[in-house]
């Protein structure tokens, strides 16, 4: 058990943080929505009713889609783009998808390489992009959920304001959808860009996201 906890610390820690913050978000969001409903002389919701609502769903989904987009863009961009001095970047002569030898695929796979890395056929091509495919799929799925839940929540608000509801296709062009989307995107892209640049000059001892404390600023693609 102790070994399991030690070998899976990152996933367990962030999984727990996710659950705690999701629970906290549900509680805070529930009170926020009810304060607005009461102010408008409408019936407040129970907590269980709130977490099943489109209000809660859109608030969760709009954050999920931007996080997975952030990592998808980061995965893809760092294949080709470089940042001199950053541990987030590959070395300056390694832009691109790199050689089969470097990537240990096909004839260069090792005995304990993943099976699909060894075949060298379409399965290797798919597996070579599997991380981006899954992250991209989760992004698109959660963005779709944001669009539907956001549309329902938006129309609920329109009816509260005695306005006609709008179609989903109209909502996709509406400022509410794009404001939710872009306010999340700007912060995600700022965060990864900032980390890539700050890590050139600053250090965090022991973190794989940082260069070793004594590593020169000009060293690229070196992690601590």
């Amino acid at each position, binding site marked *: 058990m102790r070994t399991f906890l030690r070998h899976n610390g990152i996933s367990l820690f962030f999984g727990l943080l996710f659950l705690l913050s999701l629970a906290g978000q549900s509680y805070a969001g529930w009170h926020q929505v009810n304060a607005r409903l009461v102010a408008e002389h409408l019936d407040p919701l129970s907590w269980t009713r709130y977490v099943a609502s489109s209000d809660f769903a859109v608030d969760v989904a709009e954050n999920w889609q931007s996080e997975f987009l952030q990592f998808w863009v980061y995965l893809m961009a760092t294949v080709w783009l470089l940042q001199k001095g950053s541990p987030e970047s590959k070395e300056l002569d390694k832009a691109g998808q790199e050689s089969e030898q470097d990537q240990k695929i096909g004839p260069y796979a090792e005995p304990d390489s993943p099976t699909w890395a060894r075949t060298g056929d379409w399965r290797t091509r798919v597996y070579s992009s599997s991380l981006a495919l899954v992250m991209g799929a989760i992004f698109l799925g959660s963005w779709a959920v944001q669009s539907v839940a956001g549309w329902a929540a938006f129309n609920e608000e329109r*009816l509260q304001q005695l306005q006609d509801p709008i179609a989903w296709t109209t909502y996709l062009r509406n400022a509410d959808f794009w404001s939710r989307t872009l306010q999340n995107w700007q912060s995600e892209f700022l965060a990864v860009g900032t980390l890539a640049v700050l890590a050139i000059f600053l250090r965090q001892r022991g973190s794989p996201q940082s260069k070793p404390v004594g590593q020169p600023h000009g060293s690229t693609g070196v992690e601590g």
Partner: protein
Amino acid sequence: MRPPLRLRRLGVLAVAVLALASCAGSQDDAATTAAVLLLDAAAGRDGAAACAALAGPTRDELEQSSGKPCEEAVLEEGLGDGEGPASVEVYETMAQVVVGSETVFLSRYDGRWKVVAAACTAVPGRPYDCSIGLP
């Protein structure tokens, strides 16, 4: 012989989808019924029944703005009858029912649909102007 596992799972999924669809359909019906209740009561000059269809805050606002009991005031708002084709849109706790020339807005109070705004006139590009409404 039992069907293969994947078919049983598809069956469970189909039942879940149908259940959700029937829930949505029952909400549409309930909202429409509540709106028609108000309009039929007003057309039949039954002020008490009409007021029973209104949400509490809407009733209070009607009495305060008219200076009369709800049962009298509601019959003076020129509500249309409950005749004509009905269309309904339900989003979470709110609904809009259009019956003939009447547009009615409803919300859920204690799990039941109640009218929050009626006797509404459409204003292009702006919210409906409703003579019966919330404070």
